[in-house]
Structure formats: structure tokens, C-alpha cells
């Protein structure tokens, strides 16, 4: 049973990696810094794993480790998305600036 489950996971991993590869090669160098902070926020999806551990109610040690994990993953979710938006807001074209000249 464990083997077929593992294979299913590998299946998803390979396909997701392929989609990621296709998409990210098309991101222009102009946006590489926002890309990095955006993918960083997306990989903070590990908050899901942290929540599962923190909420499992197994024992105190697990709960504490899980709670700290939730906090550090969540700081990336919120910080990552906010800072990406902050950066993207700055990218403007020439016409958009004509107003303040």
C-alpha cells in the first residue's frame, strides 16, 4: 500500500516540477527578484504541514515544535506575499509616469 501511495506522490512531484519549469523559464529577468520572493511565499505552503503537526495533540514537545514551525512558515506567507506586492507596485512603464513630469 505504501509503495503505490509513494508512486502517486512522485507522479505529482514530476508533473508539478515540469509545469514550474515551463512557467518559470518564461519569467523575464526584470522580475527575477519578485519571482524569488513569490516562490518563497508559495513554498511557505509548508505551513500546512506545520498546522497538521501543531494540531495533532500528540504530546507537548510535538505541539511546541509544531507551533514554532507554524510561526516561521506563516512569517514567510505574509511577509513573502506582502513584499512581492510592494516590489511589483514599483514596476511602471513610461506612460504611467507622464503625469508627474
Amino acid at each position: 500500500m505504501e509503495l503505490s501511495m509513494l508512486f502517486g506522490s512522485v507522479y505529482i512531484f514530476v508533473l508539478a516540477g515540469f509545469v514550474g519549469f515551463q512557467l518559470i523559464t518564461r519569467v523575464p529577468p526584470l522580475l527575477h527578484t519578485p519571482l524569488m520572493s513569490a516562490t518563497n511565499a508559495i513554498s511557505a505552503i509548508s505551513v500546512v504541514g506545520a498546522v497538521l503537526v501543531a494540531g495533532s495533540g500528540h504530546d507537548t514537545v510535538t505541539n511546541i515544535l509544531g507551533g514554532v514551525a507554524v510561526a516561521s512558515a506563516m512569517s514567510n506567507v505574509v511577509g513573502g506575499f506582502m513584499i512581492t506586492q510592494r516590489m511589483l507596485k514599483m514596476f511602471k512603464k513610461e506612460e504611467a509616469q507622464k503625469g508627474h513630469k
Partner: protein
Amino acid sequence: MDAELIKQVFIDVSYLGASVLFIFGLKGLTAPNTARRGMYFAEVGMALAIIGTLLQASVVTYTGILIGLVLGSLIGVAIAMLTPMTAMPERTALSHACGALAVTLVGVAEYYHHGAALGSGKMIAIGFEVLFGALTITGSLIAMGKLQGIIKGTPVTFKGQNAFNFALFFALIGMFFYLIFVPGQALVFYIMTALALVFGVLFVMPIGAADMPVVISLLNSYAGLAACATGFALGNNILIIGGALDGASGLILSIIMCKAMNRSITNVLFGAFGQVANSGNAPASSADASQRIRELKVDEAAEIFRNAQRVVIVPGYGLAVAQAQHAVREFADILKSKNIDVKYAIHPVAGRMPGHMNVLLAEANVPYDELVEMDDINSQFPQTDVSLVIGANDVVNPAAHSNPGSPIYGMPILEVDKSMNVIVLKRSMNPGFAGIENELFYNPKTSMVFGDAKDTMNKFVHELKHG
């Protein structure tokens, strides 16, 4: 149909929705005008995934989760609001460390709870998770220290370093394999985790600050792969998808960065770049010193700019250090008001992380259509009257084309030496981070203005306005 089943369907749908929204989010980033909308998609996806997880039947206590969510959000908001754009490389390194810390703690907690009851399959996933996670925590913190200047930016090496690192690496692999067959050996597991932390330090210490774009991208990739491994361990697809997207992104960026330096990943990781450069160049530099440098006064430089029709600005890390981006934009505005064409030439590894210069200039309201990539601008240098190099060094060093003995030989560069005049703003005659002499400075077309880049740019602005 009972309530439990409906809940389970909702959770599955929320994960599926989140995956699709993440992919749309990244698709948005392929163009500047769709990027922000893309990020909204990704944010909604993240919210969906978190809500779905909170509803999971296995989640029975909420105290730890709530404290973590609130505390983490507050820290995230504070970091996002307070980080200046010039500190973006440091913030990125720190966030890799935070992400990796979360993943590692989840792995350790899983191991602590299940221990010997883990099957070999799960042990493989948790092993990867903890190995990648732990080395990314300390590696990123060291990278951050180097970027901040808390730790010396030059490569730190000792005798037999590579041999030692390889030995440590194989010890880690050995312990990992042992645990796969005997998952119950808790002591081995914790020693392995601790050694992976040590490995992260040793792995980044020998790498010079100028190579940080590669290191940051690589650590980005590791953080993603660690999140992926968590997904394997917990049998959770959304974690696998999110981690794989991040892993792919980091990998592609590190490949792009390496290509832009004409170096292999192995050379960046094990080459201790600056060291090689120093020893190889010592005799050559004394010969160069006899050559003449032409120093330029501010009013002379202003005269050259007034008579120009096309000016290309080449920003480098020195611009970021001096925080000269706003002064540069003001300078460019004055030139443009005199009908002088102004463009910016962006080298892929200028600065300390991928896209560093673009973000800084965007912060100063430079329109992004004036930021030109290396391959497009290089053909335009012969028609350029003045190339203004601000705090860039290796990315404009002609030795990359002409001197097969140079450590940067073969690296694609911005060919500023093809323009009519080159003006270089530099703090002093000290060689750049890589410690390589730059013959561009001795070129008869080149003149130098020494001093802080921001100061000099402000003087240019003043001179052009009132001179």
C-alpha cells in the same frame, strides 16, 4: 452523505483550487502588467489551503496553531513593511532560513512522535526533509551574514576544506541510509540533523559575496525541495506541488546565474573564487599600475554629458551600497529633458541576487522599459556616446573577452568599451570583490570619478542644473 464526507470533499477541493491558483500566480509573473493580479491568485490559493487544513479531522487542538499563525503574521508584516529595497537580498536569505526552519521542525516533530514506527518509505521522505531543511537554515543565515557584512564577504577557507566537506557529506549520506533500514535509531537521527546544520555553515563560508546570486538561488531551490519532502512524508499533495514549483524556480535561477558568469555550479560551490583570483593576478597588477588613469572633475564630466546624444547607465552593486538609485533617476531625468536618450544596461549577475538592480531602479521610479537586458544592449554600445558605469566592475571587465588567463575569462559582459566614452564612478582604485584587475580603467576612452556614488551623482545633477 454525512457531514464528515462533505468536509473531506471541501478540503480536497480547496487543495486542488490552491494548486491551480499557485500555477496561475506564477503565470502572472511572466509579464510585468499581469504580475500583481497573479499574486492575488496565489494569495487566495494560500488562504484556501490554510482554511482547508484547519478543517482536517486530525487537527484537534488549536492553541498552538493560533499562537503560531498570529505571531508569524505579525513578524511577516513587520519584515515586509520595514525592509528597505536595498536589503532585499538579505531579506530573501532570511526568509529561506525561516521556511527551512519550519520544514525541519515538522520533520523532527514527526520523527519524535513516530520514531521506530516509521516505515522505510516515510523515513526516506523525513530524512530528505531534515537534511535539506537543516543545511538551508544555517547556509541561509551565513549567506545573510555575508550580505550584511557581519561575516567577511571574502571566501573563508582552510587547508583540506573540500576533503573535510566531502567526508562530512558522505557521513550524512551514510547515516541517512542507515536510518532508512533502522528508523528507530533516534540518536543517529539527531546527530544527522545537527551535522546537517554544521554542513550548511561549511558549505556557504568558502563562497565569496560576489557569488551570492547563485547561492541564494540554490538555497531557494533547497527550501522548496525540503517542503516537497514534507509533502511526501505527510502524504499531502499541495505541499508537493508548492515545493516543486519553488524547487524548479530556484534551480532555473541558479542555472541562469551560473551561465551569466560562465561558471559551473561545482566551480561556484567548491572553487573559493576570490582566492584563486588573488594569487593568479598579483604579478599582472603591478604591471598595470604603471599605466595611466584619467581622473575627471565633475564639471568636465557634466560637459561630456551635455554633448552626448545617447547615454547608457551601467549599475552595479556599488549603486546599491551607496543607495544612489534616486540620485541616478534624477540625473537621468535631466538628461532626458535635454533630449538625450538614456537607457540602463542590466547584467544578470549585477548586484547580489537575481534581478537586484531592476528592483532598486524601479523603486526610484525608473520606467522598466528603460531597463535593457545584456543581450539587447550590447549591440547598441557602438552607437553610445557615454557609458556611465556606477559601482560595477567584473560585469564590464574586458578581460573576460581578451585575457584567457583571467578567472572571469569567457563570462559574458556588458561591452561598454565599445562606446565613445566611458565614465566610471568608483569608491577607490581597490579591485572589485573578485579581486581582479580591470583593464577598462586604463583604457584611453575611460575616465574615472572617485568617491561615493550617491555624492557624485548629486554633484552631477547640481552641475547639469546650474553649471
